[in-house]
């Protein structure tokens, strides 16, 4: 018996015969169970939109994220050089401030051919830097290194740099940007599938120096 009913005389139940007491008790127990069920139903109806709101960022289709971004006139990129370019993320939103800015490395291979790499290292996303003299991208975090074509050179990354899709629109260089590139949300994953690395010596790369 609950502490709150320590004075039996106060309860109107006391005057009832045992059978009626039991009947009243089982009716109240039934009603209590019914009320629990009712609340479970209400709770579910309440929870569905709340969970939907919480999972909102996760259920957005990857394909719908992003847009073509103009990186500037092709004349700004000399053939054979790799340059850092900033742009405003097309998927920025309210209050992103400086974090809406994105940097990428633009490599002009020839008049019509470009490669645009994400600055995010394929290992853990730190910003890689281009060293024109040794023709390498180096990562400051764990020592990942990439060749000028973005392929893996050394260190912990298991693949080459993330690459944006590019297209030329007249004099303008455009890339398709959206998700921050990671192994699961790559800037472009079609050409460079996730592969287990081979030893660095065996990595496929141009061998012009042997000629």
């Amino acid at each position: 018996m609950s502490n709150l009913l320590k004075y039996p005389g106060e309860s109107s139940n006391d005057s009832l015969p045992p059978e009626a007491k039991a009947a009243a008790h089982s009716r109240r127990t039934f009603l209590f169970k019914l009320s629990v069920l009712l609340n479970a139903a209400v709770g579910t109806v309440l929870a569905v939109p709340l969970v939907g709101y919480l999972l909102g960022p996760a259920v957005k289709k990857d394909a719908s994220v992003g847009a073509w971004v103009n990186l500037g006139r092709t004349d700004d990129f000399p053939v054979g050089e790799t340059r850092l370019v900033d742009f405003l993320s097309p998927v920025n939103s309210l209050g992103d401030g400086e974090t809406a800015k994105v940097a990428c490395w633009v490599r002009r291979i020839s008049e019509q051919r470009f490669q645009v790499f994400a600055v995010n290292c394929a290992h853990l996303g730190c910003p890689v830097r281009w060293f024109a003299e040794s023709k390498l991208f180096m990562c400051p975090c764990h020592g990942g290194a990439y060749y000028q074509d973005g392929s893996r050179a050394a260190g912990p990354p298991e693949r080459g740099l993330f690459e944006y899709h590019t297209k030329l629109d007249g004099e303008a260089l455009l890339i398709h940007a959206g998700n921050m590139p990671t192994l699961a949300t790559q800037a472009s994953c079609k050409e460079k599938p996730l592969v287990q690395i081979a030893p660095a010596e065996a990595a496929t790369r141009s061998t012009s120096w042997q000629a």
Partner: protein
Amino acid sequence: MAGLKDRSIRAALQSYEWLEHRLGLIKPLSAAATHPTPSSNASWLYVFGSAATVLLVMQVMTGILLALVYSPSANEAWGSLQFLNHNVALGWYLRALHGWGSDFMIAIVLLHMVQVFLFGAFKFPRELTWIIGVLLLLLTLGMAFTGQVLRFDQDAYWGLGIGASILSRVPVIGAPLVHMMLGGPIIGGATLSRFFALHVFVIPGLLLAGVGVHIWMTLLHGVSDWPMPGRLVSKATYEQEYHELAEKTGIPFVPDAAWKDAVFAAAIMFSVMACAFFFGPFGPGGPPDPTIIQSVPKPDFAFLWIYAVLAFLPASLETAVILVVPVLAIAGLLLLPLIAGEGERHWARRPVAVLSVSVIAVTLGIFTHLGTYTPWSPIMDAWTSTPIPPKYLQGRTPLEHAGALVLQNKQCRNCHVLDGEGGQRGPALDAIAAHMTEDQIIRQVLQGGGNMPAYGNALNPSETKALVRFLLTLRGKDLPPAIDASRSLTDTSEVQVPQAPVAVPERKTP
């Protein structure tokens, strides 16, 4: 006068009775505070838990005060921290208290855990107390990580990138997990907002509730008695034995045992204040602008060891290790009291326990130490800031001097040490010619391998020639140059008995 005194005492008693009749908490709380505890555990080694609680209270208080000024918006967070540091009176001190309090809290929580583990205090009937404690440790680390994000400087930005990259390695649901963590497709306003919600609402709520349950269970089962070798814990008898011990040697926890807790907590608080006053707040570092790539991101002290481990994992194992080992480690900690809930408590009879703590402590210490100077990272500006030592240039030919220039210009120093200066990613080059022959050096430079990129595309033949010639002059303290043993064998005529090469062979130049 005596009448007045009596009257005032009676009035005070009456107010107390009035309050307690309505509140009903003072009597049970003071009974709990003065409960008898075995005198053996009124020890200086039993003070860490209460100190951690005091630190938590200080973190909550300083956190609320910081929230009066901090702006949890990606636009303004960094600026509001600068404002706190420089424009708000004592803002720097509050930030410093909160930052140092966080480091101290992690340290004290770990000490508490080690003490409880070595004393076998997690055994019956305190298994659930340990399990809740493990969750409290994880929540404390969660506070440290989310707090680092709220600092919203370059380290915070790229730290989020590292976190997202780790999540992206989860099979199948990697992408949704990344977007859940970031609150959108990129690191931005939504990311900071959700880490603010975690740091200020979700984790502290869980932490305070967990601490409440943890302390309740400590009161319920009593503070564990000092372990004695050979006194085994058995589910059948332990509670009876503990009860008798508390009966026989019991002293009231407050004040007889609690004064040590209070003194230690005061010492810890004083240390936090001293560190905050003398060393000041942590950062913020550079602004969270992802286009400033001249950044060397590094996590806070508590996570340096993880940062170090991530540098050493081979690529083929990395994803598996990152995703599986933490799960196993946490599961192991949670299941420990269920697996070893009875038996010996004393550390002298538990060699595996002592060995585990030692190995884990040494491992974490080594990785943390490595994390402080990151020998695996190239030093990005070594090629321009660290000149070739003059002693390596004296008495060299013009070709060798040209080679020294190539070594510098091609950023070799970013990864290679000369005379103690330069990056440590690759081996030091001071005695390279004593370890590698000319052919081997040429092959290594052009083709790379063993974690070195190939430089074939970045060097023309004359640069290669000059570089290798310079490297061949680096023989440490006049060590003999490396030789190709097979060459002397092929030079041997058929009638001669092959001899082990001892002298430096003359290299024939065509």
